[in-house]
């Protein structure tokens, strides 16, 4: 027995233990020791719950009722292609279906020569020097679960400038709820430039589970735009871990757009390992019903002269619950750090709830750090002004909410993606009335 006394395991924890015991020898890859160690780490702690500070608002012991069986094979690609809200965006699609890379679902034609795509376990066996979980966030319990169960995924290597965005589409297909554990590795060579889209999509009404992880290594002076689009089915539970290691003068822009899912946790860990790196982390969540969406960020300034900006907005209708946790760590030698975060929540109903938790841990003395958070309803004075000009109430509200959310969407550099997300926001607003 370990010293950790947790006599009562939840149904989900018991289910995960049984699933791991059954799947352990059938899961792909040779490194069973890595999986065992990861599962042991999870098993010792159990699912993250409200007394774990980082998971304070997203208590998986409560929110995850059971462990679904591991998702089966993908089947045939739908005739209409993979459904997406990115209409009109010309991107190379890499499909990860039910947690595994499906080349037959992906765009195989004419990839940029600077882009190398491998199935995850093929990459790992050919590159024994690559150590999984070397990016920040490796101690997280959800990531441990992903490492234990990872069923497949892709590894991408990017050299030079890639003109077309790369779109990793995580898709769940199936008639019954299941669990998927995709893992994606992306290595950006020094000086490379790329727009990387990740999307999550699945059927309405099925309470499927996704635990995904992306580890992103960005070389010196490389430029990466990463856009994560959450369009999960309304009953889905998804936890996505993103670990980013940025070298000197790297430029990283991240945007998390969330519309779907019953319970969603986007957790992002960024570490600046080289001087003069920059990151702009933004996000927009549009929630209704009883949706619960948690965006948690940890930015570690481990080198001097780096800049980070965080700008998150959420629009909360119905009884939805939006959470933002942002932690900025400035290490002792990371002088001349410039780090600021801003988060704003707009409540469209009396039952919606927003929680904001900014944290600053600063060990250097020559830094500029700041944070601001607001939560509020639509301004009645503004609404009256618009209505007094003849704009009906619902339309006035939509115009004001659109303006609120567009302010962060405008930071997405890729025009097609920006427009598609603005349109998706407009559609969401239209569906309210």
């Amino acid at each position, binding site marked *: 027995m370990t010293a950790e006394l947790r006599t009562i395991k939840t149904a989900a924890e018991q289910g995960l233990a049984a699933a791991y015991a059954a799947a352990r020898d059938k899961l792909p890859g040779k490194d069973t020791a890595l999986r065992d160690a990861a599962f042991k780490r999870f098993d010792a702690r159990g699912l993250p719950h409200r007394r774990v500070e980082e998971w304070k608002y997203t208590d998986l012991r409560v929110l995850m009722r059971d462990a679904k069986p591991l998702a089966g094979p993908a089947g045939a690609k739908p005739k209409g292609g993979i459904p997406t809200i990115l209409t009109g965006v010309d991107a190379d699609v890499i499909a990860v279906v039910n947690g595994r890379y499906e080349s037959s679902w992906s765009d195989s034609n004419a990839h940029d020569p600077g882009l190398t795509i491998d199935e995850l376990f093929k990459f790992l066996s050919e590159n024994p020097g690559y150590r999984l979980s070397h990016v920040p966030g490796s101690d997280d319990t959800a990531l441990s679960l992903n490492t234990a169960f990872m069923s497949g995924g892709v590894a991408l290597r990017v050299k030079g400038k890639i003109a077309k965005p790369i779109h990793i589409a995580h898709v769940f297909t199936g008639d019954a709820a299941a669990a998927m554990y995709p893992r994606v590795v992306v290595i950006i060579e020094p000086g490379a430039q790329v727009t990387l889209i990740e999307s999550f999509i699945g059927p309405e009404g099925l309470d499927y589970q996704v635990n995904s992880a992306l580890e992103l290594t960005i070389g010196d002076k490389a430029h990466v735009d990463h856009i994560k689009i959450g369009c999960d089915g309304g009953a889905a539970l998804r936890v996505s871990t993103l670990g980013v290691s940025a070298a000197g003068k790297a430029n990283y822009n991240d945007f998390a757009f969330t519309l779907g899912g019953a319970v969603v946790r986007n957790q992002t860990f960024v570490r600046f390992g080289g001087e003069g790196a920059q990151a702009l982390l933004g996000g927009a969540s549009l929630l209704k019903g009883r949706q619960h969406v948690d965006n948690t960020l940890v930015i570690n300034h481990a080198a001097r002269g780096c800049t980070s900006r965080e700008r998150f907005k959420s629009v909360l209708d119905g009884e939805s619950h939006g959470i933002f946790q942002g932690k900025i760590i400035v290490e002792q030698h990371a002088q001349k750090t410039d780090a600021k975060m801003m988060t704003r929540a707009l409540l469209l109903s009396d039952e919606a709830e927003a929680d904001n938790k900014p944290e600053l841990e600063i060990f250097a003395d020559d830094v500029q750090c700041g944070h601001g958070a607001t939560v509020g309803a639509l*301004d*009645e*004075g*503004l609404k*009256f*002004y*618009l*209505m*007094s*000009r*003849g*704009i*009906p*109430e619902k*339309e*006035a509200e939509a*115009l*004001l909410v*659109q*303006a*609120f959310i*567009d*302010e962060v969407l405008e930071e997405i550099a890729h025009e097609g993606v920006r427009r598609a997300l603005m349109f998706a926001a407009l559609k969401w607003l239209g569906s309210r009335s």
Partner: protein
Amino acid sequence: MALLEVKNLHVEVEDKKILNGLTLSIEKGQVAAIMGPNGSGKSTLAYVLAGKDNYKVTDGDVLLEGESILGMAPDQRAAKGLFLAFQYPVEVPGVATMTFLRTALNAQRKARGESEFSTPDFMKRVRETSAHLGIDAEMLRRAVNVGFSGGEKKRNEILQMAVLEPRLAVLDETDSGLDIDALKVVSEGVNRLRSPQRSMIVITHYQRLLNYIVPDVVHVMAKGKVVKSGGKELALELEATGYAQFSDEAA
């Protein structure tokens, strides 16, 4: 029939009585000035006409072309031809002035069962008016009133009025915060919109504005009702004597 009839209007704001049996009639095509001391209820009248929340009508009625508007939402009143030029126009971040104007105009037209304006016609209408008011294309692209000076905000109100072509415009202290040059530009903008088809209520504390927008009639308000009415010379008279006499009279 008068265009607007306010009959024995009693209004409370947060349990405080502001309008106290106000009766007022505005003829078609008439420009009426409403003057009065601070706290006499001038701005309350403007807001009640436009339909702002939290203004509780306890008695009386307001008829626009014979129809009571008190049960109508602000947008329905606007579609019926009512326009309020705000004393303090609000900033609307993220909504471009052009988008705002077009949305408002087409919403009104839709409510009236009229067809939407085509883009070229709409652009033409906005350009003509904005040129008169010294509003350039850059201002039209910017978010409504965001970063505008006091004078720019008032000019923007008149631009909206010109584009929306109301039948009854209520100008709430349009002169406040304007220097003499801005006052002239705004007044000229208002005068250009005078027509036999359009009535205006010009609310002001000072006579100065009425040198530029010359009213057909002047009503004096004190303690929540009209206490005296007369021709434009009444404004000059007030300039000389002040409002003290009315406060005493009403008390």
